């Protein structure tokens, strides 16, 4: 049978893959995709706890409302982040994360 733990494992795997991608990849766009993946992993945890925390015969809607806000903020974040990456590309013609080192000591 599928338990709460199964969902938490999938979520943990997704988050860890995203974290590995953020650390290991140099392409700023792929780093951004991995960030989105980590946010989605957190969403899966929230929805799983909402379903396994049934109160008065209904899933916990407040957790799902939090997921709604997370998705909205993530969408806004993607729009702004991609605009910044585009501005970086205009200035340097590169989007590797190590091409931005003006503040390096």
């Amino acid at each position, binding site marked *: 049978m599928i338990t709460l733990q199964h969902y938490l494992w*999938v979520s943990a795997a997704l988050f860890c893959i995203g974290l590995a991608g953020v650390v290991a990849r140099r392409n700023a766009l792929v780093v951004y995709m991995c960030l989105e993946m980590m946010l989605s992993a957190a969403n899966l945890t929230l929805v799983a706890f909402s379903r396994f925390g049934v109160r008065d015969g209904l899933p916990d809607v407040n957790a799902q409302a939090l997921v*709604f806000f997370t998705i909205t903020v993530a969408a806004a974040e993607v729009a702004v982040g991609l605009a910044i990456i585009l501005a970086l590309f205009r200035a340097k013609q590169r989007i590797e994360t190590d091409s931005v080192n003006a503040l390096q000591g």
Partner: protein
Amino acid sequence: MPVLLFYLFAALVVGFALAVVLARNPVTSALCLAVSFVGLAALFLSLDAYFIGTLQVLVYAGAVMVLFLFIIMLMDVKAEESSARSRGAQAAGFALAVLLLIEVVSISSALKRSGDTLGQHPISAPLAAKLRQQSGRPLLKGLEADLAKGELPDAKLMGEALFGRHVFHLQLVGLLLVVATVGVVALSRKDGGSLSS
């Protein structure tokens, strides 16, 4: 059957997420991420979160991924070649991910409810309808009718929560979207976003 479907979609999510990180070409990464998000939406549906599942497909797999692909095509990004520095970063990323995975899995197995199945937490619409009538809160006609019929009115419950208890946060998020839109327009102007012109 639901068990098989869970494993199918879990494998889809994790497998394509791995492909996002391992693929050299950013276009491949973006398309793999879209498939991974569709699998995640299916997992949301298996948790009776129909509204969130729909939103996941519409916003992530639809809007966000199209935006990513659009930017990738616009910049004509080349595949990444590996160097000595990136091999160190890859080892560090792998080690960090494995450490975090061990930590999260051990914590989640120690949770009190971690062994519960979906059957141990049944959704009961008639019970919910009865309790809502006893609570004395203002009732929504359509929502109560659905609950009395024994259905789970997921989108209506979300609407009640968002426009009831969380209405201030909803307005705040609307403001955030406006600010983000203005910010994106300012950032992507030809003169680099200076306000003097």
